[in-house]
């Protein structure tokens, strides 16, 4: 129940800060962009957009949310309640994954049509969003300013973008299979092409392992760098 309440108030927080309004606008722009893309490139462009935005939205959004919370100093009050850190992280990951999913489906359906394999596509968006959200929380725990966060987020997320090279047949594709985001591309690609069941399983496993690692990192980072500073008030320079 407590985790559910944390989720509800996270959604309300994001709505109140205008994140949803901005995201509706961004999604509409993507649909418009895809409308003008040649049919030969439309599916690949849609895959790239879905990966880099609804999927990776967590990188910017979670960072922005936690920076706002730091600025308002609410972690002090929040973590002297029975709220567990894992409930806090789960609420962030789920609330942002919900926006990602609605946005990804909106772009897909409006620009191209229903995804060929809806379940893998949805799982791909959810897990990719969770991966970047948790990564972002680990990063923002280390950041003391907005500029610091932007710089660190580019640095830490760059390796996760490496498998995108494979979309353009650049580099050894087998090497990309160790990256969790290769799993994202396989699952998101299921919107447009048939994928073997073994490939689905591989994608789910590698991406889930990435999410689990990001969760552990985010948990430790937040515990050591944010919770240990409780009582010092707002923490943003």
């Amino acid at each position, binding site marked *: 129940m*407590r985790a559910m*309440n944390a989720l509800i108030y996270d959604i309300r*927080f994001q709505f109140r800060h205008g994140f949803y309004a901005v995201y509706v606008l961004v999604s509409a722009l993507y649909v418009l962009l895809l409308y003008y893309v040649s049919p030969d490139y439309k599916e690949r462009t849609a895959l790239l957009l879905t990966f880099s935005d609804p999927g990776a939205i967590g990188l910017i959004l979670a960072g922005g949310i936690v920076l706002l919370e730091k600025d308002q100093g*609410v972690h002090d009050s929040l973590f*002297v309640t*029975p709220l567990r850190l894992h409930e806090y992280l789960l609420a962030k990951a789920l609330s942002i994954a919900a926006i990602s999913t609605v946005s990804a489906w909106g772009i897909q359906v409006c620009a191209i049509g229903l995804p060929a394999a809806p379940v893998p596509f949805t799982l791909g968006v959810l897990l990719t969003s969770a991966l970047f959200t948790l990564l972002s929380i680990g990063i923002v725990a280390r950041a003391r300013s907005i500029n610091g966060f932007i710089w660190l987020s580019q640095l830490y997320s760059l390796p996760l973008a490496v498998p995108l090279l494979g979309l353009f047949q650049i580099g050894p594709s087998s090497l990309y299979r160790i990256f969790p985001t290769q799993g994202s591309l396989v699952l998101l690609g299921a919107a447009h092409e048939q994928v073997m069941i073994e490939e689905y399983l591989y994608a789910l496993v590698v991406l889930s392992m990435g999410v689990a690692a990001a969760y552990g990192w985010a948990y430790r980072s937040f515990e050591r760098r944010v919770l240990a500073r*409780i*009582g010092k*008030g707002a923490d943003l320079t």
Partner: protein
Amino acid sequence: MIEVKGLEYAYPGAARKTLHGLDFHIGRGEIFGFLGPSGSGKSTTQKILIGVLKGYAGSVQVLGQELRRISPDYYERIGVGFEFPNFYAKFTVMENLNLFRSLYSVPTEDPGRLLERVGLGDAVNFKVSQLSKGMKMRLNFCRAILHRPQVLFLDEPTSGLDPVNARLMKDLILEMKAQGTTVLITTHHMQAAEELCDRVAFIVDGQIKLIDSPRQLMLRQGSKTVRVEYRKGEELAAEEFALDGIGGNAAFLQLINRYPVETMHSQEATLEQIFMDTTGRSLT
């Protein structure tokens, strides 16, 4: 309620310890004040007592639990009001209290009633960003006591409050005490400590220099005299008389009968003076 023995603490990576073997106990329904200048170790002690810092040496038991082994359920039983009243700025006063209330599984107070009690009944639908520091401090107090905690930790509870609201806050703290709540106040405001605390501890350089009741300290370390200021013609004059046997002191009786008295005060010590005499340090 709170039992601390041989408490020592060093921050990770720090060469020196911040706390050097603190010993004290606080009983049920007691208001206990931790007084000390910035950097004395009082905030570190409070952070250990609220379960934020766990890597301490010695023993710290609150409500029968050793704090290095607590889970977040500990916060169902204690309330914490920090010096800086931080809330979700874009949520209303009521939304904020409802948010925090939803995180507890124990019975909670009616937020509307609490807000009325602290004079924020008209601000229920104000966004927190619209509130003054004093209003936020009162809201902070409501948040800290929402779940009817058995132990309440307050850091500078009257900071930023005007005299009327500071009085209101002190009355609320005394009300909590009357209901059996143990209150630990961390402050460097001597007047609040004098008025509220059953006992105070002076902490300097991570060590407790003295623990006693403010009244006993002020009486014991003060001068047992009364100082009378009176008007002698155009001149303002003053004299001191021993309190012992003052009812039969002919000089005193003659003075108050003969001259218009302007002020008359017993000369007990102030807590601030006692702090300086005991620790050799000022509170600022």
